[in-house]
């Protein structure tokens, strides 16, 4: 400490500062390299998720149960063979009450063989015993308070700003918590990727200006799809609100589904 400004100490201090300045970009470069190794991201496209709000609505009065939507979804999203569906069509049969029972309706029978893709077998009850019967297409309910997002331990599933609830397949560890949490049964563990999968609203299609595959092929326009932030002139969604009384599924759970239904019975869960 006799001579604090010796030549050696000055050079030492200067080089320490220079090293510090050089270390920052080196660290940044190293960070970029590590992240490239961990996750390789494709170039982002000319699509801003904050400028859209996609929404689907289902008019069950128009569903004829052809199963084209479920088939198209399987093909478009390469959903594995077997009982795995991102969208499916359920058949509800409500029977007439037994004479003298005093009940308003009989039993409610629900079936969905292979998601409705191959049609439905003959009704398990005679035609004369059916009080009311109809088809209900099901898919992700696009909850605003999604139970699936809340339980994910690794932050792999999330509410995208454009209204879709998505899964990051590179971060999903396949624990299955979200599959148990979803009250609508809309998720499954893929036997191929071993990660959770679900309806993405055909994210690869809607970002390119196309309709989701199920909406595209629906022959009766039972599925209505639109962008709430960029409504078209005579928007199909707007028409849907205007012409129907809309409900959501399981409102008592507080999940606040954004997916809207029209023309469904109280038995639909």
């Amino acid at each position: 400490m006799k001579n604090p400004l010796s030549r050696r100490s000055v050079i030492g201090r200067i080089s320490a500062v220079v090293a510090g300045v050089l270390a920052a970009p080196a660290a940044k470069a190293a960070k970029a390299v590590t992240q490239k190794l961990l996750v390789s991201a494709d170039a982002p496209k000319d699509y801003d998720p904050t400028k859209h709000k996609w929404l689907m609505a289902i008019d069950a009065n128009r569903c004829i149960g052809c199963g084209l939507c479920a088939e198209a979804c399987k093909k478009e999203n390469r959903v594995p063979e077997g009982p795995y569906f991102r969208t499916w069509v359920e058949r509800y049969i409500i029977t007439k009450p037994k004479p003298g029972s005093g009940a308003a309706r009989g039993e409610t029978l629900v079936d969905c063989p292979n998601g409705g893709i191959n049609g439905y077998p003959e009704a398990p009850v005679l035609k004369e015993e059916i009080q009311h019967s109809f088809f209900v297409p099901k898919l992700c309910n696009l909850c605003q308070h999604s139970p699936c997002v809340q339980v994910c331990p690794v932050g792999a599933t999330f509410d995208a700003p454009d209204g879709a609830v998505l899964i990051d397949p590179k971060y999903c560890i396949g624990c299955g918590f979200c599959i148990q949490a979803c009250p609508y049964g809309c998720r499954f563990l893929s036997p191929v990727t071993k990660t959770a999968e679900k309806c993405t609203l055909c994210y690869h299609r809607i970002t390119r200006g196309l309709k989701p595959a199920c909406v595209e092929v629906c022959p009766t326009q039972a599925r209505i799809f639109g962008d709430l932030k960029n409504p078209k002139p005579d928007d199909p969604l707007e028409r849907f609100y205007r012409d129907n009384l809309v409900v959501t599924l399981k409102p008592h759970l507080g999940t606040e589904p954004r997916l809207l239904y029209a023309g469904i019975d109280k038995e639909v869960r």
Partner: protein
Amino acid sequence: MRRLFKMPPQLIRICLLAVGIVAAYSIASYFLTPASFGEYGWYRGAALAEMATRDRVYAGMKACEECHSDESQKLMKHEHKSLACESCHGPGEAHAKDPRKDNVEKSSFATCLRCHEANPSRPKWHKQIVIKNHYTGSKCTECHVPHSPSEVP
């Protein structure tokens, strides 16, 4: 400086350990947090762009209309106007990229029956047939034109 060294050595070790853990955590999180994390929320923002880059299988009606506008215009005038080309003809992206006759599905008897076979669960407004009573042949197109159902060939 002297004061610090009066701290018991075990406490100093604990302090050093704590500082080391925090430093290791911050260095790890600096290097391992994805660049796009937090772009839109508590998740990797690049996942959205990755999701959007998947290949499609259904081309969409606009792609069909590029070559088959005459058929689509015909379709738009009749009862089947709510149908898309790919409702009956199957996924068309492969055909749109490389138009050949053999890479698009052939519609058949089953295609028509998929929607029009009588079923008590189907809504009443929808036209349905009991195939046994309606027709015993194998070609609906003998009597019906799918692109304009009201037309009689």
